[in-house]
């Protein structure tokens, strides 16, 4: 008797495990919120504010997706992940979407079985050093001690860079950005290396940011983007087109301020109409409400607004658009058309 109960329980567990990998959108809808993996704390990209509300450039991607699904940008459960835990969290189904300045690489896409849904920040790896060190180039760092977040692609770039330039260094492995910052400020390492955007964000939180300088070398390409698990293309499509909608919205002049007005009635621009659901059935094709993009854009604004509010030139982080400008402005942002 007891044994049959045991088997029943085991069989049920097996069935629910099998069902979990089916349709992520249905699971998310049934749960009532999106589980979004974010960084453990990187100013401007993803960090809780004084009231514990998560905000940042990557966090806004999560919010836009949640808004597109539920019409509520707060229907997100943020799961902080480290460079080491993020992939396990995603492949185990603990999170539905990972928006955590993660570099799109071949092995992560193909071997680790993930789908990158696009690039939300074109970055490169840089070095941060104290001005007092008198170093002007990364090639002057022969023999230096370098703090590096373990389990990242930057770790491999660092090894390759020093090897290619025939200079040596001592790595100090740190787990999180906060730990790297603490070690760097204590002088336990001469230089701190990670994505240049992350370095700028970290430097912005220093007491005296001007005492530290970013070296001119960018030693790698780091296209950072959100990603989902392999095996559910519908879910990947949904996330990809929410991100595309944010980028297209900037290109087409849709902002959080005028989106409601533009969505009220069809405009002269058919592409705007298709995005905002006043023409065609694009929402239904994604399994969403017709006004999915309106909700996503209302949540945090278009791509440009999200950028300016979190990491733009008027924030302490002060990043220029650079490569992340629209293609019409000489940048790399170029969405496929909505048609």
């Amino acid at each position, binding site marked *: 008797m007891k044994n049959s109960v045991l088997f029943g329980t085991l069989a049920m567990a097996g069935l629910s495990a099998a069902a979990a990998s089916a349709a992520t959108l249905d699971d998310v809808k049934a749960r009532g919120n999106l589980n979004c993996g974010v960084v453990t704390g990187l100013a401007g990209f993803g960090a809780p504010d004084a009231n514990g509300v998560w905000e940042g450039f990557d966090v806004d991607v999560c919010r836009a997706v949640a808004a597109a699904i539920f019409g509520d940008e707060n229907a997100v459960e943020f799961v902080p992940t480290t460079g080491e835990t993020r992939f396990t969290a995603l492949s185990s189904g603990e999170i539905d979407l990972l928006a955590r300045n993660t570099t799109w690489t071949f092995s992560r896409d193909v071997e680790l079985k993930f789908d990158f849904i696009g690039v939300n920040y074109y970055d490169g790896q840089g070095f941060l050093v104290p001005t007092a060190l008198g170093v002007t180039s990364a090639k002057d760092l*022969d023999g230096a001690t370098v703090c590096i977040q373990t389990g990242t692609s930057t770790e*491999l770039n660092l090894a390759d860079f020093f090897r290619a330039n025939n200079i040596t260094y001592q*790595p100090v492995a740190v787990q999180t950005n906060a730990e790297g910052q603490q070690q760097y400020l*204590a002088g336990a390492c001469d230089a701190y290396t990670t994505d240049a955007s992350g370095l700028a964000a970290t430097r912005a939180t220093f007491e005296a940011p001007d005492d530290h300088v970013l070296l001119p070398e960018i030693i790698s390409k780091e296209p950072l983007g959100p990603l989902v698990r392999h095996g559910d293309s519908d879910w990947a499509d949904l996330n990809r087109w929410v991100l595309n909608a944010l980028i297209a919205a900037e290109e087409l002049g849709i902002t959080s301020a005028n989106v409601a007005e533009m969505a009220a009635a069809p405009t002269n621009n058919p592409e705007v109409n298709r995005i905002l659901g006043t023409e065609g059935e694009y929402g239904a094709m994604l399994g969403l409400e017709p006004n999915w993009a309106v909700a996503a854009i209302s949540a945090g604004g278009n791509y440009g607004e999200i950028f300016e509010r979190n990491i733009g030139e008027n924030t302490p982080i002060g990043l220029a658009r650079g490569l992340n400008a629209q293609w019409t402005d000489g940048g790399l942002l170029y969405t496929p058309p909505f048609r």
Partner: protein
Amino acid sequence: MSSMTDSPPRESFRLSQLIYDTRYRSLTIQVFTLVLVCIGIYWLGQNLLTNLASLGLQPNFAFLNSRAGYDITPSIGTWITGYTSAATHWDAALVGVYNTLLVAFLGIILATVLGVIAGVLRLSRNWLVSRMMAVYVEGFRNVPLLLWILLIYSIFSEALPQPRDFREVEGAVSAASMTWGAFAATNRGFYMPAPVWGPGSGVLVAVFVASVVAAVLYRRYARKVLFDTGRMLPMLWPMVVIALLPVIAAYFVLGQPVSLSYPELAGFNFSGGLRVDNALLALWLALSLYTGAFITEIVRAGILSVSKGQTEAASALGMRPNRTMNLVILPQAMRVIIPPLTSQYLNLTKNSSLAIAVGYADVRATLGGISLNQTGRALECMLMLGLLYLALSLAISFVMNLFNASMKLKER
């Protein structure tokens, strides 16, 4: 009528006996449980493989032969294996294994020394000494080990000077200076002179080993003389002379083959000499102090388990207190101490996997951390790690069981 010798009727075996006959019932239950357990394990394993297959992942250890691509902080492991970023993930795992072994070995030694001393002192009749030991035990036993590791590590990195503070500035006193020109404590590690083995140093080492053996043999001889005749030969100074004199003589005869290299500030860091990483030191100290606190209590329990009559008997024979402790109490206490001590050694070894918190490249950090992350082979890496720690623990248990057997009460 012929009388028949009735042998009891031989009943044929019936299936119901398996349940109703007490002779077979326990066997039935055991077989049934074993089958259930096997089915359960098979079911779980099958489930895992099916789920992995549905994700398109098959267990595969080929990644061990691919290029690791990351660098590891210089440590004993990289020194032994000559690891560079061009080596394979397997080599990186080996580096980790060596580093784990080093910190476990050092930790076990220091924890034992600390534990035995503190355990004896805790029973001291001196109020201050016994209270101080109590504070040590309670302080370390009741705070998570991870906090101690992080605390010690951050004391090192925050409080000690940076290497560039050692730089000599014209017309000013530099912020820090080396001790005797040979030792430097920095927030990146401790630097000290390292021996440089020149030609002929092999002979010197051989002489050293031989003279240590000779010293031990002399000790045996002196004990034998003592037990056989009651005559007490001097012990300490002849042993020191036997151990050291030939080595010193050989050192000069061979033309000073071993010299010292001193650490010197060069560029960003000290170069030359021996560098002991702060991460290793913090981990070693924290592990030893933490486990030492538990060993203290084990030692105390062991000593208290020896009946007071033993002490009194030893005093009656005119033995001094420290001899009583060393020759009468501790040998008997060992029998109580060793089994729980073994489990503390196992704990220490497994707790060394907390190294990841301070970036010490143990096997959990290389194979189970960076390699796992770069290759995504979580199942394989965790399986290997599990087997490794299992093997390590079984080896420690084996050695400790041998030790236990040698300390057991020998009946004559």
